[in-house]
Each structure stands twice: as C-alpha cells, then as structure tokens.
C-alpha cells in the first residue's frame, strides 16, 4: 500500500516542521544548561505534554494495541494505575525535591548521596538500557513502515534516525520538548480519528462489546481491569498493584532521567510540580487512544495471529486517503518523541555523569555542550546498529518492560532509602543497587521454574525492589553512615524545610 498525494504532503509537512523546530531553537543554545535543561525556562503545559508523548511511542502504537487485542482493557492498567498515582507523588514530593537540589541527573544525586561508584554504575546501567531501548523503538518503526508501505525495514530506521538525531542535536531539550508538543497534538488527532472511525464502523461501543463477547469464552475478561492471578494473563491484579503501581511506575516517573529531566527544566517550582500533574491528566486519555483501538481491531478483524499486526492492519483497511497520512505522521510522532527524549537524557547522563566526572574533569562548559551533541550522533548510530536484535524477541512491548524491570526496582529502592533514611550508608546503596540487579537477572533466567505466568516482568520488578531494599538496609546497619552535615540538601527533611539553607546548598552545587 502506498501513501496517496495528500498523505505524502502531510508527512512531509510534519517532518519539515519538526526539523525546523530544531533549527529554530539552536540559536538559544549557548551553554550546557541550555542544551540539557532548556535554560530552566520551560512552562508546565509544554513539559506535561512532553512527558506524556515521550512515554508513548511507536512501541505503544504497535505493542500496546497488540496487547489489548490479546488481553483486553486490562492493558489500560499500564497507563492508569501504572502511571497516575506515581505521577501525583512525583509531582508533589520528588520533582520539587530534585528541583530545589539543583541537580542535572538522577545518577548525579545518587553520587552525592552515596558515592562515585553508585553514580558510575547507575549511569552505566541507564546508558546500556536506554541505548538498547532505542534499538527496540527503531525496530518498531521499521516493522510498521514495512507493513504499511512495503519499505525495507533498515532504510526506514536510518531515515528516522537521521531526522531525530538532527533536531535533537541542534536544539537540545528545548527542541525536544517543543517538538513533543506538536507531536502530542498530532498523536491525539490521529488516535481519535482511528477510534471514531472504528467505533462508527462497528456501530458504537455497545456493539463492539457484544461482538467481542460473542467471539467465545476466552474473551470473557476483555472488559475488566481486575484479572485474577489464577487466569493465564501477564496482567494479574497482584502484579499490576505490587509490581506496576508500587515499583515500576514510581521508578519510571521518579527515578527515570528521561522523564525527570523535563521537569528540571521548568521555569520555577510551581511549573515543575504542575507539569507532572498536567501530564497525569493527559495520560488518562492514552488507553482510550491506544487500548481501545486494540479492542476495535479484535471486533473488526478477529483471528489475527500476531496481535502486533492489529494496528497496521487497521490503518490499511479502515482509513481513507488523507487520514492515512495523518496516522502515519502520528505514528512518526510517537516514535520520534520517544527517541528524542531518550537520546537527550542519555546524552545528559553520559556528559555529566561519565564524561565530566571520570574522563575530563576540567572540561569547559562549551566543551560539554559539544560533547552532548557528539554523543547524540554516536547514540543514534548505535541504536541503528542494534535495532535488528529486537526481531529475535516476540512481543516488543514486553521486551522493553523486561529490560527496564532489571534496573528500575533496584534504582527506586536505593533512591527512596537515600532520600528518606539518613542512616543509609554509601555501601548500603552500592550493594543494594548491584544486588538488586543480579536478583532481577536471576529471576529472569529462572522465570519458568519460579513463576506461573509467561512474562513475569511485573513480579520480577517487585521482588528485585524488595531484595534491593533488604540488602541496602542490612548492609547500612553494619557500616558507618555519613555525618549529618554531609547529608544536608540530600535527605528529604533537609531539603524541603529550610529555604535559606537550601539556597546555600544550591550555590555550593553550582560552584562545584
């Protein structure tokens, strides 16, 4: 299937506009703070939109819709209970905490709170996970473009990488956030279009429900958010609550550099808090736009062997000329927003936590700015090279979650302990992080004998979080803590309750 003339015009306009944003914001980039934190000038509405669109990517267009096709509305938990409560806590507790502490990255905080080893390990883990995650996202693009256009997968990947790499390298976080605003609008318009057209073709919501329920008893749970762990589902409510809501979601919205970095670029503390809450509000609509189309696809086209093909098939069969171009642009939006955010935050971690800290300590600010741009290009090349590995794993979304669950639980554990328990020692933090990672890896390797469900990433994240917590507390009780003076500005009560002291701490950090 080829795009018609109007479709091509829409796509070209979109691509040109996004590249233009990168070129436009280049003139505002004169320092590393401008590049990595947008000069701390961003408004809440733009950050909130950017947070949401960064979280929703090509993986969700294809993977989330595909999972909804297989398992039903329960997949909506990923964006509802798996986001909203954590985002509220992030907005009201953690984001203002980071904002006042004046840090660039999460590893930077961990390095100050624990030691250089924790900072280096955490930064390295994130670099690896994010770099391979980019490969996953790029591969999803290639698959859809192949399905939709018949283009060779690798050529699609290279073109996308060049466009995203260009505007991210030019405009830094400002370009990333403002292009995300445009991309969210396009995604919402595209998502609503396919939702409305699909429901219209089915005769409405009730007709869709009846049609799916009539497909057989195996679809009995397709319209319930709470599924018993006795059922053969990767989304049992126990895993959703303990693994997703309590561990993975807070880890994502509190300890994930990609998400937190935007709020650190807010123009003041209120905008930083409001940005995450505005993002939570928008996040409520994501399952409507991506999960419900999976159900529509099931009702319209039952019997598709691979659920991940549901979305491309809907575009092919459901949309008229013109709308296909819009959906195509929406898909590219999802893809690009995820990639630009990951690239920008990973470049920040590399430049601030690895390069400046371990390789060139006396680097000038201009040198760091150039390094951030160079690394952006290197990262894109790496992502293009690793993208084909993704094809070895069935279910791209699950693959991404599995990768993240290896590191998210341990990261959250030592972050929370470091923030709220002054007794946590540097060795407690270090062993908790490393030990938690090995627990994750061990649980994954032996998953078939330990777990009853096929993809237990929710349970793995919970147990690795708990294991990491226990290790960090145990080791801390047997090792010597830092004196309280050294922890000022790093432990919760010592950050948020004394403004004058906090100002001194921020001054010291900036001088450092």
């Amino acid at each position: 299937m080829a795009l018609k003339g109007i479709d091509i015009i829409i796509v070209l306009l979109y691509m040109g506009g996004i590249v233009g944003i990168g070129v436009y914001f280049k003139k505002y980039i004169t320092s590393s703070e401008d590049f990595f934190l947008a000069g701390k000038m961003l408004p809440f509405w733009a950050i909130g939109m950017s947070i949401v669109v960064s979280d929703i990517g090509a993986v969700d267009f294809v993977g989330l819709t595909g999972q909804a096709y297989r398992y039903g509305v329960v997949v909506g938990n990923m964006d509802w209970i798996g986001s909203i409560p954590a985002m509220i806590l992030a907005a009201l507790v953690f984001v203002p905490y980071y904002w006042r502490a004046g840090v660039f990255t999460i590893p930077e905080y961990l390095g100050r709170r624990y030691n250089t080893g924790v900072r280096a390990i955490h930064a390295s883990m994130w670099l690896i996970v994010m770099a391979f995650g980019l490969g996953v996202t790029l591969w999803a693009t290639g698959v859809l473009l192949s399905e939709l256009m018949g283009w060779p997968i690798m050529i699609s990947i290279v073109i996308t990488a060049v466009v995203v790499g260009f505007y991210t390298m030019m405009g830094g976080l400002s370009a990333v956030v403002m292009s995300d605003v445009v991309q969210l609008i396009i995604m919402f318009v595209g998502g609503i279009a396919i939702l409305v057209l699909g429901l219209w073709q089915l005769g409405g919501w009730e007709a869709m429900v009846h049609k799916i329920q009539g497909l057989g008893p195996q679809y009995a749970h397709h319209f319930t958010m709470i599924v018993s762990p006795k059922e053969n589902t990767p989304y049992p409510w126990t895993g959703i609550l303990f693994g997703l809501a309590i561990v993975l979601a807070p880890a994502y919205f509190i300890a994930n550099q990609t998400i937190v970095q935007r709020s650190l670029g807010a123009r003041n503390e209120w905008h930083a808090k409001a940005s995450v809450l505005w993002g939570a509000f928008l996040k409520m609509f994501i399952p409507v736009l991506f999960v419900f189309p999976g159900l529509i696809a099931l009702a319209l086209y039952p019997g598709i062997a691979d659920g991940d093909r549901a979305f491309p098939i809907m575009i092919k069969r459901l949309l008229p000329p013109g709308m296909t171009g819009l959906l195509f642009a929406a898909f590219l939006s999802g893809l690009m927003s995820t990639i630009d955010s990951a690239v920008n935050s990973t470049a920040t971690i590399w430049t601030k936590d690895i390069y400046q800290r371990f390789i060139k300590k006396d680097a000038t600010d201009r040198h760091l700015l150039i390094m951030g741009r160079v690394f952006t290009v290197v990262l894109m090349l790496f992502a293009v090279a690793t993208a084909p590995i993704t094809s070895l794993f069935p279910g791209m979304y699950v693959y991404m979650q599995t990768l993240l669950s290896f590191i998210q639980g341990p990261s959250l554990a030592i972050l929370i302990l470091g923030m709220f328990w002054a007794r946590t020692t540097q060795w407690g933090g270090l062993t908790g992080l490393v030990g938690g990672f090995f627990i994750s890896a061990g649980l994954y390797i032996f998953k078939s004998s330990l777990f009853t469900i096929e993809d237990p990433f929710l349970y793995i994240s919970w147990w690795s979080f708990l294991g990491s917590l226990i290790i960090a507390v145990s080791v801390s009780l047997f090792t010597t803590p830092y004196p309280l003076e050294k922890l000022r500005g790093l432990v919760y009560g010592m950050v948020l309750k004394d403004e004058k002291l906090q100002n001194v701490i921020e001054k010291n950090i900036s001088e450092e």
Partner: protein
Amino acid sequence: MFNFDFLANLSEGWARFLVILAYIIPLIFALTLSRKYIYEGAEDQKLWRNLKIWVFVIVAVMVAVYLYF
C-alpha cells in the same frame, strides 16, 4: 510465593478496592499539603493554580473508570 499465590483467592471486589486505594492515598496526601507549598513559585494564587484541585479531578475520573471496568 513469587506469584502472590496467597492473594489469589481474594475476591475481585477486594482487589478492586485495593487498586482504588492506590489512587485515594495520593489524594489524601495532596489534600494535607500546606497552601504555601502548593503555590510555591506560582505567579499568583488564582484558584486554577491550586494543585490540590488538579489532583482531585484526576483521581475522581480514575476511580470512576475502575468502578466501571
């Protein structure tokens, strides 16, 4: 134990209650925060900038969704 087998027999109603509780707890926390903290850094103190109201609206919608599905 790794699969939370001990909770497998909990009724769907109780499971739903626990999930909804995960929304209610952050709401209660938000409502207890001081006005000064909520408006910290805000350009003015208009009602729409009160972040407690934002949290209330979000949680209300979510609870309704989980009661429906």
